[in-house]
């Protein structure tokens, strides 16, 4: 996942669920998060996110992050590995 600030600053985090004891929880969260994908509507001054899950990819504005999608982005940003 990549967070792109309005000034172009990027913050990338990767989380590999393979071998994790909590892989099932992550996969369930990802499934809930991607069940509803809002349209890409960037807002001036706010970050956007590029999220890739198992080969699929979505772009989303921070203004449209809510529910499981917000939970997923927040968790990956905090726990994911910087690469």
């Amino acid at each position, binding site marked *: 996942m990549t967070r792109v600030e309005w000034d172009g600053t990027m*913050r990338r985090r990767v989380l590999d669920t393979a071998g994790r004891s909590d892989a099932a929880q992550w996969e369930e*969260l990802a499934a809930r998060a991607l069940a509803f994908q809002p349209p890409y509507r960037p807002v001036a001054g706010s*970050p956007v996110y590029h999220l890739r899950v198992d080969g699929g990819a979505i772009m989303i504005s*921070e203004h449209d*992050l809510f529910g499981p999608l*917000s*939970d997923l982005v*927040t*968790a990956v940003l*905090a726990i994911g590995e910087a690469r």
Partner: protein
Amino acid sequence: MDEIHGRASLRVDATPQAVFDLITDVDWLPEWNTAIEKVLQRPPGLAEGVEWTVKMHPPHTPSWTSISRVEELDRHHLRFAYETRNGDGNPSYTKWAWEVTGAGGGAEVTVTWDVYLKTADRRYFGGPLRKRQLAREVPNSLTAMANTVTAHGPKGTNWTDEGRGDPSRMGRDHAAPGA
């Protein structure tokens, strides 16, 4: 994780009334609460049952809206309590309680937070993250609040003589026993 509980306190070199006035002034929240970016909606006056909405934006975290409803506003005993929930409709909520007392010519402010996580995602993912965030945010916000009240002060501030205008005294005796 179903619940999160925490407590923090700080001694401030200002009158208890000045501290309480700042804490209960919604417009001033972004000045000292390090997680609040701006106030989105405010009531014309603060009273039990009224709500306000802020945009939360801790560093390196997506922003979210937070709606708070006043549960107690006791200007005599300087107690302020409210319940906060996420604007996305998640049923999880947090109960915040503030109390300001006189201490050594200044004020002692204590805040407690009790978070109740009501969905699986918040219990497993959001809760542990928010617990760590709060452990950092609340002490930082208390220190910023002390700086704000001593540097500016809300309208009608009644300053104490001790420590007035002396930034080196601000935030002394900082303690966050529950953080």
